[in-house]
């Protein structure tokens, strides 16, 4: 009884972890698409100071998401 309960809990933990990692990976891919689009728009309107700030924020977002992914692989 107890063993099956612990197995269920463990399975749910594993499922949570896999789900979380999957969401994070998809999110990072999406962020790369966003960054790519910003880059392509920056080539159309040249010399725009705001675009470089947006690019920086987008890059920061990617770094944060990647860090979250790596930390969750280790800790979870």
């Amino acid at each position, binding site marked *: 009884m107890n063993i099956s309960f612990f197995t269920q809990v463990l399975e749910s933990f594993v499922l949570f972890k896999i789900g*979380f990692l999957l969401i994070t990976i998809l*999110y990072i891919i999406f962020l790369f698409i*966003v960054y790519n689009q910003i880059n392509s*728009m920056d080539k159309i309107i040249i010399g725009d100071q705001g675009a470089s700030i947006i690019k920086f924020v987008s890059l920061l977002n990617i770094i944060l*998401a990647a860090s979250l992914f790596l930390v969750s692989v280790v*800790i979870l």
Partner: protein
Amino acid sequence: MPDIFIAKYKELPKDQEQKRSNLTHFKNFVKRLTQYSSSSQKNESNLKIFSTFCINPTGISFENKERDEKTLLFLRRHIITNFFWVLITIILLLIPLFFVFLNFYSINPFRFIDLPSRFSYFFLILYYLIVLTFALINFINWYFNACLITDKRVIDINFSELVYKNISTTKFDLLQDASYNQTGLLRSLFDYGDVLLQTAGSLENFDIQAVPHPDRVVHIVEGLLGRRGNI
């Protein structure tokens, strides 16, 4: 001493004369517009991050710009059009705090669904990153939707939902008419509206949406079309 040869004065054909006068008028208008922007509107001459209406913007260029081409006007949607997504972002940022209050000040906002605390913190961080991305996408949707009016053509850049990108260009020779539409309380209050530039024949019309001071935009475009002399 008698003249050996005196050329007879020939009047230019009407079409040529018209073209010449139009060209002179156009050059004068561009010159006046440049002088006007540099003298009386120094605060509007430089393009900033949140600029929505900028006469004679400096330090900006675009793809396929010709050497002698001058950018006369830079337009974006009015800043007030961002109100709704900013409001949604603020609400989304406050939702976890609401759950903290709901759970009697427990730091774990996902306690009510029995999610282990270490998972909930990671989900919370991911949630805030997604909210940040939501705000970023909405901002770039606004930021990259721009319209540039040069002394030669009109360039309309449409960018939405990350996957749709459309850049349309038309020369002033092909433009026929400029009009604007300003309906609604918000538009009257904040002075913004849609500008419609009609092109000749089967070409697609230009619909520049929610731009500030649409009357001034139409005035400038009509001046460039050679219909009005004053700015």
